[in-house]
């Protein structure tokens, strides 16, 4: 088990290195940050001096190695635009994105699994079919459009919920949370629905199809033949078997919830890392972009690692090799 974890962590580190390399090489094509940093009235000497100061005159592999060296120590450099350490800016912005992603993920998983099970068990019922048809909307509408529609309905027409921002936040240590104030909670509703809707419908459709497959298995028939209650058959026997493949996809989806928060954050002007990234691109703020991409890949890789470990706890067959080795 420990060997497995170590191997997986090593693989993850390799993935991160490659992601960093690819990301870093891309930055050379987004534009020249010097143009943005110096105004119209600049001299060639100013440009050269700043380029040397930022280390941009060095070849790109050297820049990458320097970046990595700093990143390992938690130092992602100084933002070109704000002139402050990138790690400080990220720490300030991360709680907003993480809270939004957590609420969206929770909604997507809990509602997605519940509706998936419901539509599988009542697969010929009217309600189940209606939910299935509606879910097509969730899968096919682009995120920004859902966001705009929600804003139009609940903010503009009904005036129930705020259309942008995080509302009031409370500071606990280095973390700012919107969970503790009414306006913070209200502000969370629309963005988290927008962000989670696609994942929710995806999880629901996946759970449904997996569950239908499992319900056809012999062990479900045998469970029925032993006179177990329908609840036990559906939830104890069928749902557990359904979850094994669902966990894989769900894990990946949670990663993309954080990554795709960019769009939702832009629509709702949510002060998270996604919005920070969009602004950074406009300004060619390379340290911020690099740090953001590394942060997202760390989360992706981390979630995948957790998913793989979850398999072990759910499916005893995977633990078999380990037991045999002892």
């Amino acid at each position, binding site marked *: 088990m420990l060997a497995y974890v170590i191997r997986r962590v090593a693989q993850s580190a390799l993935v991160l290195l490659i992601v960093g390399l690819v990301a870093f090489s891309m930055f050379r094509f987004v534009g020249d940050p010097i143009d943005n940093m110096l105004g119209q009235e600049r001299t060639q000497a100013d440009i050269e001096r700043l380029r040397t100061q930022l280390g941009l005159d060095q070849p790109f592999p050297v820049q990458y190695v320097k970046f990595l060296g700093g990143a390992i120590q938690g130092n992602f450099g100084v933002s070109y635009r704000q002139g402050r350490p990138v790690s400080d800016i990220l720490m300030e912005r991360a709680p907003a994105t993480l809270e939004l992603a957590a609420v969206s993920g929770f909604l997507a998983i809990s509602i997605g699994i519940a509706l998936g099970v419901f539509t599988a068990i009542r697969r010929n019922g009217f309600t189940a079919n209606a939910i299935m048809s509606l879910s097509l909307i969730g899968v096919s509408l682009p995120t920004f459009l859902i966001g705009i529609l929600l804003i139009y309905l609940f903010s503009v027409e009904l005036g129930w919920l705020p259309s942008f921002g995080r509302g009031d936040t409370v500071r606990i240590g280095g973390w700012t949370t919107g969970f503790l104030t009414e306006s913070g909670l209200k502000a969370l509703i629309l963005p988290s629905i927008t962000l989670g809707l696609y994942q929710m419908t995806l999880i629901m459709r996946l759970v449904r199809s997996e569950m239908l497959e499992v319900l056809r*298995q*012999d*062990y479900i*028939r*045998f*469970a*029925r*033949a*032993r*006179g*177990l*209650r*329908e609840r*036990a058959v559906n939830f*104890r*026997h069928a749902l*557990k*078997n359904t979850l*094994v493949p669902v966990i894989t996809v769900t894990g990946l989806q949670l990663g993309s919830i954080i990554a795709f928060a960019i769009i939702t954050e832009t629509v709702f002007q949510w002060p998270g890392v996604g919005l920070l990234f969009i602004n950074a691109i406009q300004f060619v703020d390379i340290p911020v972009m690099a740090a953001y991409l590394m942060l997202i890949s760390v989360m992706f890789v981390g979630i995948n690692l957790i998913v793989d470990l979850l398999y072990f706890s*759910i*499916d*005893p*067959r995977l633990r*078999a090799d380990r037991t045999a080795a002892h």
Partner: protein
Amino acid sequence: MTTPILSIRNLTVEIPTRHGILRPVDNVSYDIGKGEILGVVGESGAGKSMAGNAVIGLLSPPAHIAHGEIHVNGQRVDHLHGDPMRRLRGKEIGMVFQDPLTSLNPLLRIGDQLTETILAHLDVSRAQAEERAIQALDEVGIPGARERINSYPHEFSGGMRQRVVIALALCAEPSLIIADEPTTALDVSVQAQIIALLKDLCRERGTAVMLITHDMGVIAEAADRVAVMYAGKLVELGPVRDVLTTPRHPYTDGLMGSTPLASRGKDRLHQIPGAMPRLDALPTGCAFHPRCPFVQEKCRHDPAPVLTDGTGAACWYPLDKKAEVA
């Protein structure tokens, strides 16, 4: 005569299709007494399993019981649905499926699968249920039952898993076991053990057994009486010795002739010419007449007589025992 454990009277199972109604079980009647093992034989699609599923109420829609009655311990069960039927399954009627590799839930410990079944039917505490589970495993010949109770299905061999399945079917002490091809998926070397185990356990408890199989060897080994089915109809019913040695229906005769025997030497194995008709293309008259070597004009027009009195052959011209010996 005492009340039989299972009594099937004029049972007809129908499947409505676009091309008309199919009758996989057509006007079948038989009884199984306490401690008796009735072998039900026939080709694939003859309706053997369908009859078993009808008894335990697990016909998959659109198949349904159209006519006839089923009594278990004197209680009529064919019209039961939902919770009353569920209480019957496992408690009055146990079932053993064909493939032990797929009939156990891979994610639950076998002890949990046993105790949940016991708790569903008997009024005992969890600790008592666990004791019973250990006892049940012990009775089916699983060594070290007390430790093995915590094992998962994949940690057992195929033969051992079928023993677990039998323990599961018997753990709530049903008075009838429906064993649907219990040895077909097993290695030849363990088939005899499983049949012997089933036979012994049921003899000890006085459990009635419906042993569905297409293996004449299994029938000869275990059954007290035999019911032969062909194209949904019961064609011959009688004590195992009589049916195997002096079959009266030409189909049974053909089946016996096509069973390989060591004493028969290297002669080419006898075959019944043709194939069993599809249910949507049954011939007029006796369903077996196109393949019958003794066919007469009457057989082509008049449906074969229906067996009702518990023994005999459903044939217009049953074979004469003496003639058959020659």
